[in-house]
């Protein structure tokens, strides 16, 4: 509220500043609204939420795995993550589902449950924003799946399309 009041005061004094401040405030509020976790353990993807995850994970190696219910090789990669999770709890993996159809919502939930990946951080793209969100993840990525990002300690993204070899995942994710 204080922030809003402050914005309003400035609105009255500086029209130009007002426009940009209001927009920023709206964006922040929208971002916060989107930050609320959705049901079934998956959170609606937003640029802000993804930035937060990137900040949280800075200094460690982690993996972002993007998948769709329409992608058979994605199931194999999810199974590999499940296998690794049995070897080591709290894997540094963030899972992002790219489906936005209402018809695939339940499938998404069932698949994540099937692979016992509910405990990992799960995001899903939102309807009408799939391309924007794909672009926010990586403007160089065209949507082919599965898509895996190996993010190093410096926060640098190394993207790879297609099913990842198990050895590479072990090497990147297992610390014990």
């Amino acid at each position, binding site marked *: 509220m204080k922030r809003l009041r402050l914005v309003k005061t400035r*609105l*009255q*004094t*500086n*029209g130009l500043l*007002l*426009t940009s401040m*209001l927009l920023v405030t709206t964006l922040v509020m929208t971002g916060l609204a989107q930050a609320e976790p959705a049901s079934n353990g998956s959170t609606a993807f937003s640029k802000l939420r993804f930035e937060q995850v990137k900040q949280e994970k800075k200094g460690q190696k982690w993996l972002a795995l993007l998948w*769709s219910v*329409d*992608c*058979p*090789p*994605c199931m194999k990669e999810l199974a590999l993550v499940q296998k690794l999770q049995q070897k080591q709890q709290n894997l540094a993996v963030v899972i992002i589902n790219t489906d936005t*159809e*209402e*018809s695939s919502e339940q*499938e998404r939930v069932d698949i994540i449950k099937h692979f016992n990946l509910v405990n990992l951080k799960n995001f899903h793209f*939102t*309807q*009408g924003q*799939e*391309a*924007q969100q794909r*672009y926010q993840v990586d*403007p160089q990525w*065209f*949507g*082919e*799946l*599965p*898509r895996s990002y190996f993010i190093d300690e410096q926060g640098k993204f190394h993207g790879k*399309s*297609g*099913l990842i070899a198990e050895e590479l995942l072990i090497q990147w994710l297992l610390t014990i």
Partner: protein
Amino acid sequence: MVIVTKIRSPMKNFKNRLSLLILLKVSLSIGFSQQVLAESMDHSQHQGQKPAKQAKTSCQKVAVTCGKTVTSAFAPNGDLWRVWSQQNNIYYQISPDNGKNFGIAKAVAIPKEKISARNENRPKIAFDSKLGVYLSWATPREKKYTADIRYSYSSDYGKTFSTPITVNDDGLLTGHSFNEMVVDEEDDVSIVWLDGRLKQRKDAGNGSAIFVASGNMTKAREQFVNQEVVNGTCVCCRLAVDYNQQGKLAILWRHIYGDNIREFAITTLGEQSTPYQVSHDHWKINGCPHQGGALSIAKDNRYHMVWYNQGDKGKGIFYSYSNDAGKSLSLPIAVGEQAAQAAHPHMSEKNGVIDIVWTQFTGTEHQLWHQQSTDKGVTFGSAKVLAISTKGSDRPFIVPGKNNSFVSWHRFQQGHWLSQL
């Protein structure tokens, strides 16, 4: 502008700036959509501005806007049909004036069943010379990644449709999907699809197989006998089909070569035993590109093709033609801007003119692009933006008419857009 400078209240000022921005945006949209012909008499098309939540509820009613995909085709009498799937029905609308106006949406009169309609998968429509209407689609089965190819026919221009049949004859609970359908001058209908039945074999390789089946609604003969075309194809990219001048069916698809090298290949049924490799972009991916190609065969039997790859030897959209059914190709021409995410190309040849459409994405806006050749594919004019979308973008398709070609582009919440090329 005058109003804005005279306003004293900052809030009003802001609102007016916002209005101005919206106005500018609307003006821009109008500028782009001068060729818009496809808005339906159904006013649901104008609800494109509504936020996603409202759109969800509004899609309880029947409207093309609610379809995830739209398939269009011209009937021999000049009518333009469009079909989409909603609530386990296939709906159609007919336009008598090249898409300027459409009649009311009607459900195809068959029992409800699930219809695959998203991304590369969607119902197909075709016509014969006697105004017979042909529909085919994939219906998902009870197990994941399983489906059947379905087919129905109308001999009375859509008033009634035959009881749907399952085209794949293997009786297996496996993948049968990504169907394409064409009808030739003899009114033979051919359906091709990606088929998972060979995965059951011990020597099954990677990927799917292509199967074909033909029928004729006016001749008494055995219908839709399934024939294997090729094994080892990508499992998630649409097929492209056309008849050549000998009346043979040619198929273009994404094949898996060696260790997951995904390249386009072509074969003409009855003319060759081994397919020709079309692209050499070396895209190695054990995954789903979700991007098929397009094929159009001219009266001089020149095969025109477009495809998309992200290989280490070739990235983006490419166009090429072949005078010998794909055995040798012209030097591929790059189409669109790779840095702007040029993707999902479609192409069609008509009277020596080749039209290519594709989409690009700026980070906030989808753009529909078009490029044309008037010399049988030797050179192309400059690429132009035809339309934009901020909410979403289905794949664009070229719909050949009697004298001209049209582009069909469905946009999430914005409706179906058609324009003469």
